[in-house]
């Protein structure tokens, strides 16, 4: 008990200091930091995991889209796959599309992973990071939402509430 009281006091002081620091930071939007809002995705030709050559821009043309950048070694990315599957199935009948972009890994690695754990969305390969770099995305996971015109309306780190809200808005549906 003697040891607990000082610890609690220190923790309270620490929490107050953290709150004070937070107040001084102010609120900043959590989206759009890396990939500029309003830009369009690059017209790069990439390979899909099923062997097709395609442009993500053509794949999503005229459809609201959520693009998820991920890698097999990235734990937070892999944790999102279930949610991305559900989103792909929910978005398709509403005219939307989910596209996965496997960043920085070769086809063999991604294919081996997706054989064990198939996904419900189209996945394309970006082994040289060309797609990610063109969007100024330097960390994984990353999520980009496009409207029907192919413009970036949201860029964030994970498939969270903010990303979903942006995607629903692009689809024109309410929760």
């Amino acid at each position, binding site marked *: 008990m003697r*040891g607990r009281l*000082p*610890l609690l006091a*220190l*923790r309270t*002081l*620490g*929490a107050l*200091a*953290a709150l004070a*620091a*937070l107040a001084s*930071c102010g*609120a*900043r*939007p*959590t*989206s759009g*930091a*890396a990939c500029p809002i309003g830009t369009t995705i690059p017209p790069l030709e990439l390979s899909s995991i099923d062997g097709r050559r395609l442009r993500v821009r053509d794949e999503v043309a005229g459809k609201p889209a959520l693009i998820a950048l991920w890698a*097999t070694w990235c*734990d937070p990315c*892999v*944790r999102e796959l*279930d*949610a991305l599957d*559900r*989103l792909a*199935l*929910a*978005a398709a*009948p*509403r005219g939307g599309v989910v596209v996965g972009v496997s960043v*920085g890994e070769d086809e063999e*690695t991604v294919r*081996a992973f997706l054989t*064990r*754990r198939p996904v419900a969305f189209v996945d394309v390969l970006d082994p040289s*990071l060309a797609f990610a*770099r063109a969007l*100024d995305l*330097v*960390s994984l996971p990353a999520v980009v939402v496009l409207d029907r015109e192919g413009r970036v309306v949201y860029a*964030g*780190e994970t*498939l*969270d*509430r903010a990303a*979903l809200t942006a995607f*629903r808005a692009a*689809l024109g*549906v309410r*929760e």
Partner: protein
Amino acid sequence: MPSVKRSLVLFVLVFVTTTLLVLTGSAVVRAEMAPISDEAILGRREPIVLESLLARYTYFAQDGSGYQSKAGPPGGPGSEWLHVHEPQVEVVFRQGDRIRHRLWLPIDIVTAASPVTKPDAVSAASRYNQAVALDWTTSYRATRAVTLSLREGVHVERMFRSYVLGLSASFASENEDRTFTVGVSQTNDWFDVYDVTGRRHGHANRSTSGVSFALSQVLSPTTIGELNYGLTVQAGELGNTWGGVPTNTGDRDSESYPGRRLRHALVGRLAQFLPWNGAARVFGRFYDDTYGIVAFTMELELLQRLSRAIYVRASYRAHVQSGATFYTTRTTPGTSPATADSDLQELGARTLGAKIAFDIPTGNTFLGARTTHLDVAYERYFRTNDLHVDVISCAVGFRF
């Protein structure tokens, strides 16, 4: 009339069929239109989500000699034989989307040979000692660019208590390729004072205040660099108090330290991904303090992934330092400050290490863990003033 009857029957048939079709159709539409709400896509929001759990056991076996130890000939260096068993547990969990906690609980079980020669100080406490610590770091992702961290720690052993509180704030640049971190920390130690004869002289305390600045920068898609500067001010009783200093009269005095110490440390790190699925890390540290110690440390670490589940690591570390201005192995009785602690002597040290780690995908089949982690590591530390330490560690962990 029959035609009216036929029309009525036809109407009922058409109505029922249409109703059935509409109902069936809407059911089909409903089945296709899976819900797209936050809960339907992201799942139920758990207040606490366990991310990883790791149990590690580390064994330190130290041997050598130093003049501060009495377990040797009069006026000569004594044994620094010391064994430590350290089981540790690390738990990482998330609280909501923005808060992450890391709890680390090490338990030290220390067996030391150096104090066995009577009448060395702290006798039983040093021969066999247990210590427990709890380190709790909470980070809060305030915005995409700003992360705040709060660290608290408590260390308790037989005659020693220590509390640490640290705060840091990280600011990421717009495109997240640069991060600036500023941190402050305060450590307070309270402990019993024993002199070289083993007599207790009440309590003493020590304060350590630190401030640090770090800048990390993505230099290329496969290279990251970091520069860190830390300033630390220590005040209070800075020695162990029970360490001895041989005197020119053939006796031993208690060591004594200046009551204030200012330390500067400049650290540079570079990490490079290697195209054969490996990575190289280089670490350099320049250190300077008001005790007169100037040190330079260099470390090279190579990591190689052998398969998706296995990687190995090899490391080499070199350290050189000048001695403290008041280090001596032969002092005049009553001289202060004076120490014979071999850690403060001019020395060179090397560390060689190797590790093999396994990250086995278990696909939620084992305790709900997606990955099971196993590793075994060995390090040997040896230095020019007769001290070497073997460190063996093994761990088992789960990522959820």
